[in-house]
């Protein structure tokens, strides 16, 4: 493409600080150097290159530990203020590789939750994320039950992990729990569980101790480089500060996850746009004339761009709202949860839709590894369907209807 992709998507420039600009720039340089400029090489040798490339982002630039306080050797980005910065960073990572983007989004969503508990929680996890080894966090959200069972619910969604009081702390138990991804890799789990009253909350479980069992490697659609597995927790002890009690904590986790994964998927779609832009400027069709100059193909390109551009706007908008809890509420409030669920669903769906359209223009190249597009398609689908949760988009609609129309539908 002739135009710089960074000049094609508008957003309120006042929302992006100088510091954000700087870190965004260094992530973009990493992306261009390590992946975008040699994407085929990256894809052909993913097993080797993924951890290597990831390390240079996470450890050298410091994107792992980005949100840990500076005195714990993190980069000290604090939420909610840093929301606009986080989406810029994740967009850049997602543009390079949605798998690496996903890993960071999981960590940042966990950190956003830790913020609500104050400094001690960060101290506990800093050795994992602010050292010189790669580590990741996984998230276990409510999923589904089996016919006949009765389970505690979060907004209609069955919660399978059980948290019980145990002296000054708690224990958590649950079997066959399915993380969004990273179940095999993660050092820490953010787990939606329910207490003995059936009230949901979020438990942050460090996976180094006894009682945590990982199942077999799960083969899946996308997010290569991340390995997933079912998790069993067998009365794993949990310090008091690591149990974030109440539905607001769960909503908080969902709100930030929607924001952060939204930025990753939009970034992935932007990466595809560069690929298809090149293709359309080079490919001759209908016996003469470039693809980009054919009105039908051009209008498909425009449709794809529109989905990406509008998604990016929505993500900025949500980031700004989360960054200013005084305006419409905090990430744990029902209003912001509703907005985040709605925006998150829309953005994932639009990003996927955009990539689908771009693939149509690439034809078989859209489908072949060498076309440099199909991985983003699989990655975004994996993120999108996982984020829906069992029941699919319908459940998110019901979240919205309950808040906006005072519906009692579950």
């Amino acid at each position, binding site marked *: 493409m002739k135009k710089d992709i960074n000049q094609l998507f508008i957003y309120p420039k006042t929302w992006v600080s100088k510091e954000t600009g700087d870190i965004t720039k260094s992530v973009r340089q990493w992306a261009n150097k390590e992946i975008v400029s040699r994407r085929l090489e990256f894809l052909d040798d993913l097993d080797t290159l993924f951890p290597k490339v990831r390390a240079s982002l996470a450890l050298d630039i410091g994107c792992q530990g980005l949100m840990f306080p500076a005195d714990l050797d993190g980069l000290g980005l604090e939420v909610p203020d840093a929301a606009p910065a986080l989406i810029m960073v994740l967009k850049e990572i997602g543009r390079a590789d949605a798998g690496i983007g996903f890993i960071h989004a999981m960590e940042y969503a966990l950190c956003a939750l830790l913020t609500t508990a104050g400094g001690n929680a960060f101290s506990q996890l800093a050795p994992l994320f602010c050292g010189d080894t790669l580590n990741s966090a996984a998230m276990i*959200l409510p*999923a*589904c*039950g*089996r*016919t006949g*069972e*009765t*389970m505690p*619910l979060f907004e*209609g*969604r*069955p919660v399978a992990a059980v948290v019980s009081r145990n002296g000054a702390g708690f224990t958590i138990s649950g079997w066959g729990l*399915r*993380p*969004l991804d990273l179940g095999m890799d993660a050092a820490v789990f953010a787990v939606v569980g329910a207490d003995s009253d059936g009230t949901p909350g979020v438990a942050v479980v460090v996976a180094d101790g006894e009682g945590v069992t990982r199942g077999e490697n*799960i*083969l*899946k*659609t*996308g997010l290569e480089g991340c390995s997933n597995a079912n998790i069993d927790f067998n009365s794993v002890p949990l310090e008091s500060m690591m149990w974030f009690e109440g539905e607001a904590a769960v909503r908080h986790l969902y709100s930030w996850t929607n924001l952060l994964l939204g930025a990753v998927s939009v970034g992935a779609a932007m990466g595809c746009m560069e690929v298809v832009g090149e293709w359309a400027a080079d*490919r*001759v*069709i*209908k*016996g003469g004339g470039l693809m980009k100059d054919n009105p*039908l*193909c051009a209008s*498909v390109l425009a449709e794809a761009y529109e989905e990406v551009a509008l998604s990016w706007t929505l993500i900025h908008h949500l980031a700004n709202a989360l960054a200013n809890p005084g305006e419409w509420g905090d990430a744990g409030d029902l209003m912001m949860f509703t907005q985040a669920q709605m925006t998150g669903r829309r953005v994932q769906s639009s990003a996927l839709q955009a990539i*689908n359209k771009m*693939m*149509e223009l*690439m*034809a*078989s190249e*859209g*489908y*072949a*590894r*060498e076309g440099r597009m*199909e991985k983003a*398609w*699989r990655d975004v*689908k*994996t993120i*999108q*369907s*996982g984020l*829906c*949760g*069992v*029941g*699919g*988009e*319908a*459940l998110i*609609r*019901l979240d919205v209807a309950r808040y906006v129309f005072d519906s009692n*539908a*579950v």
Partner: protein
Amino acid sequence: MISYEKMSKPADRLSPMEKPFRQVIRKWTEDDVMPYRRQYDEDWKDHHLIEPAMKKLCVDLGIQTVLFPEELGGMGFGSSDYMAGLMFAMCEEMARGDSALALANICSMWALCTFLLKPNINMRLARELAPMFCRTDKLCVCCQAMTEPQGGSDIENIDLLHGKTIRTTATLDGNEWVINGHKLWPTNSGGIANLFGVPCTTNPGSDDPDDFAYIMVPAHLEGVKQSGPYQKAGMAADKNGDIWFDNVRVPDFYRVQGPGKDAEVFKGIVTIGLLGSVGFGMGAMMNVYEILYDFVNTHTIGNRPLKENDAVAGVIGQIAGDIDICRILSYELIRLIDSRTKVGGKPLHSEETIAKARNIKAFVSDVMVNDIGKAMDVLGGYGSDRAMDVEKHWRDVKMIQLWLGGKQLCQAEATRYFFDCETI
């Protein structure tokens, strides 16, 4: 009732053979494909698992002979009034297990359609090539080598471009054609083909249909070179690679029909390709429906089965309803094709048949991509799990949507017919 038997099957259009024929294929799918399909993705290069399944179907069950006349050891579908119905049934039943494997099997017959379908049966060529397929215990894989590096779907767009952009050439030298050119991406390339069907030109740059030639080229001949397969997002049982023809010589009667007629039968097999595409998509959707049926009956939200939540019910009902609509359209496409030699019927290469077939294929493609995507969503975090067998269909059907010129060419051909366009 087995859930997928609920889908429409218009009684007035079924061959009496359809049910028993489906049962044979279904057994193969359930015994030889479904238990192994989760491992196919890793088998893309070697086909350790895939080739035996193909051989069982094509050779042991004799499916590679179906189009050949009975007197040559075939099943005679090529002259049956129910050819399209039976081919569709086969595509659907196979693709319920794995659409790539279905594709590999069916594409093996695709090029043969240029000379084995009534009213264009070329008996001399049939007799010549029958021994590769019939009365043999060897798997014979055929490949229609259509696409060229520069042109993308231009070659399928024959009504607009009349083959003007084809660069693969055929030159008559005595009683032999000499073929030169480079093709890529066809199903059953990547090293496994025994026989190619090759659209080419006898006069490069010409848009005279007489200069378009379709020539059968055995793969063992000197000058034929195949690359290994490409890696793709799915469809592992379908190998795609490059083929180079370097002064390859074949007897002159390997040209399937002759000047003018070659272009017609080539357009005609595009219609057949569209039928196959719809059949593969249907098979994938039928399987997704079965899996979804089971999932929403056994899993809960809000402590009730998913299917009893009205909002989820709306989504899954729409998915099933869309599948039923695609089933109905499939049988209309079958009718279009199987009435080709009947009163009121149109030949496979007629503008009307192509436009309507394109339209149905484009529609079914969009539905399957969207709805299988939605089915994945209903499974939430389990949707992307290979063990659920939904995501593989999601990956596979995208390919069906993209091939044969993709959606844009489908739209163009439909518009050309419905609005009498001249430059579209």
